[in-house]
């Protein structure tokens, strides 16, 4: 009960934030956090719930971003209308990529997606007729709908936050029903899952497609916020960063996705400031720390730590044990 009240309060606070703060920069940063959260949601579904892995989801992120940009610029579509189109395109692209990958085991999936992730900037540059090549696409500033009396940062914060919550709700429900049990079964024991009548290949391909859809949606949101996209945004280091963010948040933890997104938004600049030569070294240390001490993410790690501390005091109090 208490948990529910706290969640409700946090969501209310999230919605009221544009009226609480007047720092547009803070709002922009949090907007980016919600964009990344949606991306990490997709990876959570893929890695945490289905046991697959992808280092190449940047490709679908880029796909969503470019679809949004092209539809707005060349077809004059409203930017909000591009979100469902981008998500659907991501779903289909994910299915086309994921279907042949459905039988790959973990290591080969790492490789195949690594190859995809490494070739994203080249692919974008190759399709220069649509994507504008290295120059990227610069969009005219978007406007806030007329009936809403807010400035652009508050408005963009609000719609990204809403979409993020919607995705959270969607995923919560998706992972509970038959489909949720099926993807968990495929992760834990695919032979047993098959014996239970789960179509393993299709389940894996569809999960890949769903996670790609979240990545594409997140990419489209990114375009509406930065209003400028170029191939360099989607280079391989971003794929690595987003993977580390996934690990920090915890692979099977949707609330952790927010933690991971906060990490992705705030830690890389800090790392670059702390150690300008090579922020990568810091990330390696963080990743090692996570692998050793909290392989299930910070939230689970903190919970485990709390239990251990409570146990310690319990023993101390009742059994006088040190």
């Amino acid at each position, binding site marked *: 009960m208490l948990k529910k009240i706290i969640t409700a309060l946090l969501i209310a606070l999230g919605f009221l934030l544009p009226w609480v703060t007047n720092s547009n920069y803070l709002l922009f940063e949090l907007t980016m956090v919600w964009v990344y959260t949606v991306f990490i949601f997709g990876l959570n579904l893929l*890695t945490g719930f289905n046991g697959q*892995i992808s280092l190449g989801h940047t490709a679908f992120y880029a796909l969503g971003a470019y679809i949004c940009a092209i539809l707005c610029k060349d077809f004059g579509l409203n930017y909000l209308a591009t979100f469902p189109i981008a998500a659907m395109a991501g779903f289909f692209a994910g299915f086309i990529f994921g279907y*042949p*990958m459905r*039988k*790959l*085991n*973990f*290591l*080969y999936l*790492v*490789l*195949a997606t*690594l*190859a*995809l992730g*490494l*070739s994203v900037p*080249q*692919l974008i*540059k*190759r399709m220069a007729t649509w994507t504008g090549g290295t120059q990227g696409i610069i969009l005219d500033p978007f406007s806030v709908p007329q009936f809403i009396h807010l400035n652009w940062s508050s408005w963009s914060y609000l719609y990204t936050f809403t979409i993020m919550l919607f995705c959270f709700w969607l995923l919560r429900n998706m992972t509970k029903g038959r489909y949720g049990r099926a993807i968990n079964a495929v992760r834990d024991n695919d*032979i047993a899952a098959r014996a239970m009548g789960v179509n393993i290949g299709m389940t894996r391909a569809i999960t890949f497609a769903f996670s790609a859809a979240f990545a594409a949606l997140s990419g489209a949101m990114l375009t509406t916020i930065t209003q400028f996209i170029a191939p360099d945004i989607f280079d*391989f280091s971003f794929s*690595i960063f987003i*993977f580390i963010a996934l*690990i920090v948040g915890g*692979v099977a933890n949707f609330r952790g996705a927010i933690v991971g997104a906060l990490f992705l938004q705030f830690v890389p600049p800090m790392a670059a400031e702390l150690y300008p*030569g*090579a*922020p*990568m*070294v*810091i*990330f*390696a*240390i963080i*990743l*090692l720390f*996570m*692998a*050793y001490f909290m*392989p299930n993410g910070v939230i689970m790690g903190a919970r485990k730590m709390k239990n251990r501390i409570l146990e310690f005091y319990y023993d101390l109090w009742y059994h006088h044990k040190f």
Partner: protein
Amino acid sequence: MDYFLQQVISGLTNGLIYGSLALAIVIVYKSMDMINFAQGEMAMFSTFVAFTLLKMGVPYWLAFSATVVFAFFFGVLIQTLFIRPMQDAPQLTVFMTILAVFIGLTGLATVLFGADMYAFPSPIKPIEALQNKYFSTHVVAIFTTIILLFLAISSFFRFTKMGLAMRATAMNRTSSQLSGINTNFIVALSWGIASAIGAISGMMIAPSLFLDINMMATLLIYSVAGALLGGITSPLGAVVGGLLVGVIENLASNYIPFIGSDLKLTVALVIIVVVSLVRPAGLFGKHVVTRV
């Protein structure tokens, strides 16, 4: 036809390098059922060590041998420090550790050696008789080295007691432990050997590319594609697969205009997917049946 031949041979040259790195990957894979994604970065790091030694004025072959020895202990060290504690962890956690080694080495190399590109010297003086329009002396030298390396590794596995212990550990760790093999030592040893092979291939390819910190990132993907094509458990397969991948990649980028030189990685991607779907055991590998 002449152009075609030239392309095949230049593909074979790349393929040799992929093959040697694939050999390193196969050795680690056999010892712990995991692809060492940091193999390329470890090789890059060792090559930079060789470069630093050469810059200090050390004669080439001395620097070469010193680097191979360094690479061996470097591999053992990384295995002992980072990978061994993860022995019984889930695959994802092991992968996290390897990824940490991967980006850590990239970062460390940036700090120590800078992000510039360097020309790396080749010790081979061109010999008139071996120099023609298809290949150069350097290629012949690489070819010879790789063949020797492969023979040495195969005979090590086949004829020495240590090699037997390594094969046993790969097959069944628990049983090997029960028969008195120090499996920790064996796994560390295989990391060391793999790292030394990686260093040799790094030093051999660096003269034809430029030496920089990202030299090995894409090379690794081709190598693993080669290892996979040849059968990830077979050293012979690794070399043959590497050669094949080199040729296929070079022909595809020259004869299919859409692929060109930018999208060569897609070729590796297609090879990985096709092999995994059509023949997961590769050309020379054995199909492994798992017990439920």
